């Protein structure tokens, strides 16, 4: 799938953009703070209803304005899709092919994206919450029920934690939230488990492609395992929870462990190995989406070249299949040695204005 046209007005510093990207490589280059990342953010927002940078949606509105508009034309194997995402006076509205959509789950998955930013390079060595965010982003895009379960789980968790925080937590009051935690949390665990099972062989292969002989493995560290008695675990943890004033067990404590040649990558691997592992994970994601939906997602690379050494940049570019539409932002327009003979379209961005060069 690919984006054939992208338009937006008043999204952050992007005052008025109208571009028609190529189905292959697209390079967006410009200096710092010219709007490169905002352009990718606008695409993410239109396809997921969320920003990767902020939860404060008023931040997305350009200076002094009341709202913004984003429009995407998307080409897929069997159809074309038009997506509109607007914000006006604090209210978000989404349209698919001109028809207003009331649920976030109705816009998710209309177009799949894989997003790779400098923060993702720390996926392997960073905190567990980053890896959970990765799981949630990927699974929400492809399974509407996952997103619904995630939202419900978070709400119930907030309620139970509030009881604990206020010291009003007698076991009977805690219990009434636990069945729902088990119901929604169980679904999250099931999907995460399946996702990592499917992703692992793809990541192993991708890592071999980047790092040669070394072997990457990943393991889902579920705080409550898929076959554990979820409700029983919560019941047993009640006294601990009351003492610590927080819900101590559940998928909000999950993690993924990466091992390189049998050693934990977070503590034992070199920085280069960690970056390669993160890259492998993203490349595996491309293949995973293809397996799931039958075509490659759109790949967005946000300033990753600054973080990767030339050799790894080479490997990354080599590993991106030719059918993938890729939108890459960079401060350096000279990518010839990386791109080899690939067709490429270059856009320059300056103070929120984008021009094809």
């Amino acid at each position, binding site marked *: 799938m690919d984006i054939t046209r992208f338009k937006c007005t008043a999204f952050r510093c992007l005052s008025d953009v109208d571009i028609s990207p190529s189905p292959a490589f697209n390079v967006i280059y410009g200096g710092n703070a010219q709007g490169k990342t905002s352009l990718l953010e606008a695409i993410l927002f239109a396809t997921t209803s969320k920003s990767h940078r902020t939860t404060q949606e008023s931040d997305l509105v350009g200076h002094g304005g009341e709202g913004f508009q984003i429009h995407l034309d998307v080409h897929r194997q069997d159809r074309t899709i038009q997506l509109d995402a607007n914000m006006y006076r604090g209210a978000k509205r989404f349209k698919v092919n001109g028809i207003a959509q009331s649920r976030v789950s109705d816009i998710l998955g209309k177009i799949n994206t894989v997003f790779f930013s400098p923060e993702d390079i720390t996926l392997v060595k960073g905190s567990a919450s980053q890896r959970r965010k990765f799981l949630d982003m990927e699974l929400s895009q492809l399974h509407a029920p996952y997103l619904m379960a995630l939202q419900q789980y978070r709400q*119930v968790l907030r*309620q139970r934690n*509030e009881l604990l925080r206020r010291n009003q937590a007698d076991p009977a009051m805690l*219990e009434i939230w636990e069945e729902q935690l088990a119901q929604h949390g169980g679904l999250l665990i099931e999907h995460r488990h399946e996702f990592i099972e499917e992703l692992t062989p793809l990541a192993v292969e991708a890592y071999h492609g980047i790092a040669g002989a070394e072997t990457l493995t990943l393991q889902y560290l579920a705080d409550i395992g898929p076959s554990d008695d979820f409700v029983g675990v919560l019941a047993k943890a009640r006294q601990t929870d009351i003492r610590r004033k927080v819900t101590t067990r559940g998928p909000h404590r999950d993690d993924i462990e990466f091992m390189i040649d049998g050693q934990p990558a977070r503590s034992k691997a070199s920085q280069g190995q960690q970056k390669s592992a993160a890259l492998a994970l993203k490349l595996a994601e491309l293949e995973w989406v293809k397996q799931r939906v039958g075509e490659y997602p759109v790949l967005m690379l946000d300033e990753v070249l600054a973080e990767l050494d030339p050799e790894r940049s080479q490997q990354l570019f080599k590993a991106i299949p030719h059918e993938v539409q890729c939108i890459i932002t960079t401060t350096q327009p000279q990518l010839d040695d990386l791109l080899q003979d690939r067709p490429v379209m270059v856009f320059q961005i300056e103070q929120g204005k984008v021009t094809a060069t």
Partner: protein
Amino acid sequence: MLLNSPSVEQLIEAFRRLPGVGKRSAERMAIHLLSEPEEVAAEFAQAVHVARSRIVHCGVCRNLAESDPCSVCADERRDHSVVCVVEQPTGAMAIEKGGSYNGTYHVLHGVLNPLDGVGPQELHLDSFFERLQRDGVREIIVATNATAEGEATAMYLSRQLAQSEIQVTRIAHGVPMGGGLEFADDVTLSHAMQGRTKID
């Protein structure tokens, strides 16, 4: 602010306290009322005032009513051994419109919601349990909304009544996920009442 007038601001604030009304809508409503002839505003204020002065909380079911007990609680033909528990009067209104329910109601005026500081005391659940004993109720149908808080409230009622003779059932089918009862259509609600399930 549009007019820089404290009294107008106060009116806008009053509208904002209504459910589902944001700042912009509140401003539109206030300005609309103030732009119309004076009688329109007077009629509006009168209607609010009269309705409020005639409406009481039914001492039995806590529903809004013109009499205490309300017409449902006073109706001998209805089945007083079955009580349908709803969050808001609108829930009871929606089920009444469905037409297939012949029991009585209990209006909680809320649901358990720790984040909003609502616990069993705020919902007056002690007096609800007293009512169940007093009236010899044999079944309650929990028709709270299918939200996290509505489900937890249903669970709480079921747990509290587990040792009693009272059967606790939960409407299940057709109520939109995360949605309010007032948005469900009559057929859906009638279906939901028939498809209620026991909470275990």
